[in-house]
């Protein structure tokens, strides 16, 4: 196990360094924070002065070496647009995003797993058809549209929830639902098809022959076997949520997490902040994947042995 962990950590760091290299090259090729910061009327001299003061006129290799050293020390430099340590800015925003993603995933599981299981036990029934249709609808809805619709209904018409912002459970509800519904749609489908497969296995037939009822079979046997594919898919959804979906959801709801921070950084061509955000998110995703893999090993001994 220790060897496995060590290998995974080393490879994870290699991935993060690769991501860091790609984002460094991309931001330096595509952005010009000095030009972006200055008005059109600024002189060439002022532009060159600002580039010099930001350290952007140094050779790229020198800048990359400094960036690499900074990653090791968790010092990404000072954000150009916010004039604060970029690492600290990202770290301050991260808990909000993790809270949002955590609540959304919990909500998605709460909806998807029971529905998927139920639908799988009644294939072809009205419940199954409704579940499949609802799950397809959920995952097809564009999140910016869904978020706007929820705001209109709950915040503007019913006036029971806030339109935007952060602070407490009430501010989490609408963004969490917006993030959760597409995830719930996909997990419902995974759960349903996994349980249908499991219910056709020999061990289920044997359990039934022994006289066990369906709820007991589902709880004691099927759930555990279905947990691995569901959990595998969940790890993918977690990564997508942290690195992608939260950008849209946090922007729609003005939720102060890392997703919206990355939009701010991109708009300002703030290369330091962009690099810090991407690298920290990459570290988080690598760590999350590792945790999920360990969880899979816990619930399925065959995975443990194979690794």
């Amino acid at each position, binding site marked *: 196990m220790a060897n496995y962990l060590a290998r995974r950590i080393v490879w994870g760091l290699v991935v993060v360094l690769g991501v860091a290299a790609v984002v460094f090259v991309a931001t330096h090729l*595509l952005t*010009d924070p000095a*030009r*972006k*910061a*200055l*008005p*059109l*009327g*600024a*002189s*060439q001299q*002022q532009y060159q*002065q*600002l580039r010099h*003061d930001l350290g952007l006129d140094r050779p790229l290799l020198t800048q990359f070496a400094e960036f690499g050293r900074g990653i090791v020390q968790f010092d990404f430099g000072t954000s150009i*647009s*916010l*004039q*604060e340590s970029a690492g600290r800015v990202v770290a301050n925003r991260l808990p909000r995003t993790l809270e949002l993603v955590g609540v959304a995933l919990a*909500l998605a599981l*709460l*909806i998807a797993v*029971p529905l998927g299981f*139920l639908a799988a*036990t*009644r*294939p072809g029934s009205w*419940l199954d058809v409704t579940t499949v249709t609802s799950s397809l609808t959920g995952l097809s809805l564009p999140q*910016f549209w869904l*978020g*706007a619709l929820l*705001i*209109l209904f709950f*915040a*503007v018409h019913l*006036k*029971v*929830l*806030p*339109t*935007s*912002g952060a602070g*407490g*459970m*009430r501010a*989490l*509800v609408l963004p969490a639902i917006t993030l959760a519904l597409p995830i719930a749609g996909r997990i419902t489908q995974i759960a349903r098809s996994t349980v249908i497969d499991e*219910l056709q296995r020999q061990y289920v037939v044997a359990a039934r022959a022994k006289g066990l009822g*369906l*709820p007991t079979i589902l709880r004691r046997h099927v759930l555990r076997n279905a947990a691995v594919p569901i959990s595998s898919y969940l790890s993918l959804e977690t990564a997508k949520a942290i690195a992608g979906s939260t950008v849209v959801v946090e*922007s*729609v*709801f*003005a939720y*102060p997490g890392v997703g*919206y921070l990355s*939009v*701010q950084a991109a708009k300002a*061509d703030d290369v330091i902040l962009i690099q810090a955000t991407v690298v920290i998110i990459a570290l988080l995703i690598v760590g999350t994947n590792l945790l999920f893999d360990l969880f899979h090993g816990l619930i399925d001994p065959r995975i443990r042995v194979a690794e």
Partner: protein
Amino acid sequence: MFAPRRLSVGVITALLAAALAAFLLMSTSLAEGSRAEALGSTAAKSQITVGLPSAIPPFDPQKYDSQYLRSVTDNINEPLLGRGSTGKLIPVLATAMPKAINATTWQFKLRRGIKFTNGQPFDARSAAYSVTRIINPTFDSELLSLVNTIKSAQAVSRYTLNVKTDGRDVLVPARMPIIKMLPRNYGDNSAFLKHPIGTGPYIYVSGSGLGPIVLKKNPHYWGGNRATITTVRIRAIPDVTTRVAALRAGEVNLITVLPPDSVGSVPKVATAVGIENPTVIFNSNFGITKDKRVRKALNLAVDKRAIAKNLFNGYASVSRCQPLSPSAFGYNPALKPYAYNPSQARSMLRAAGAEGQSITLVTSDVFSNGPQLAQVIASYWTAVGLKVNVQVPPFKDYLTAFFAKGDKHPDGVYVSTSSDLVDASSTERMLSSKGDRSGAYANPTVDRLFETAAQTPNAAKRKALYHRLLKIACDDASVMALINPKDLYGTTKNLRWKPRFDLGLLYSTMRLAK
């Protein structure tokens, strides 16, 4: 297949429904208590909440050129000279307009007995510190290009300040509203970025970035106790649909940057003639646009009235053949826009041998409506027989095109420009051939008029010079000035406020009706 007992299906479904209901109920019951707090700021008659489209930069009004930052710092930090709601220069911390005591020195007399909210006195030493700070090239102010003719500032006596320029600069008074006064040496303190201190009618309390940023009325404001709004909360709500929803839900009293097509969704709309001027700059020296007939034809081919009506829902006026808004000093009200006349445009293109030729128009998506306007212009130009190539490159490449010289400058470059000094001198960037400009037009008479105006302290004479050069540029069709979009704000019905010409939000001028 197995036949599940109805009871288990029913139980599981009921449990699921109960869990979801509990989640929503818990959240909404918590909402009831806190909603009063959230709406308190709009319900209470002396508090307002403002929704902006972007997060607020760090609180340094001398470093960052951001209208969102100004929505906070304009209420905390004051300049020696400011601008009234229509753009006229007025003394604020100075007692009167400055005097030019020689060709390169302007003298300001300052108000006495004013203190910053940290107790430090406002005097000539703090004024000199403030001016010296922003003009320091190593400070890297985004506003430096607007104040870099100023070389130094000295406190001559406790309440007299001399500002020296590099050569004669008649625009020093116009530059002073940009320079906000700071407590001496406080600007060198890193705490300043998180806690602004000024002499203004409001005091910073808390918050940053996305907000809410809280300001409270300054009870010791030197200008008196006229402000009726005691607490201001400023929040960033980037998505326009959410921002409009927040206004409709009563969470905010005022939202800015309201798109024209959302006007029908808000309780009340406030408008002001804006300072933005969408303009196409032609390459008057090379290529298809070198011929004046072609440039005139390009102007005649575009129905600017239809653009104002359809793209801006009528919340825009057609520009009078100059890339300047009516509030700017030197604006020539006598000029008339090129009237929409596609058949005349076609004839002129034919006469110039340009019919069927290709023309390139470069724009950028950093300008609101930039790509859309470019496409609309392209459709008009296509209709009169040109092949139009619209390019929307990354901003870095757009700037390369904008500042390109000679034949490297595209045939047309779209820009949405505003005059930060509220003065026709800002059109030099487009109409002069000197310096770091969009160097596409070179008329020696216009160049000479700009130089003369820069040396003419008499306001009436300077205005006449500006009028003349703008007329020449209009006759030369050096640019295609399109429209002056209005600035649109959504407000609650009970907010009484007249917007300024420059997107400034001064909360002391707002009040909530009873």
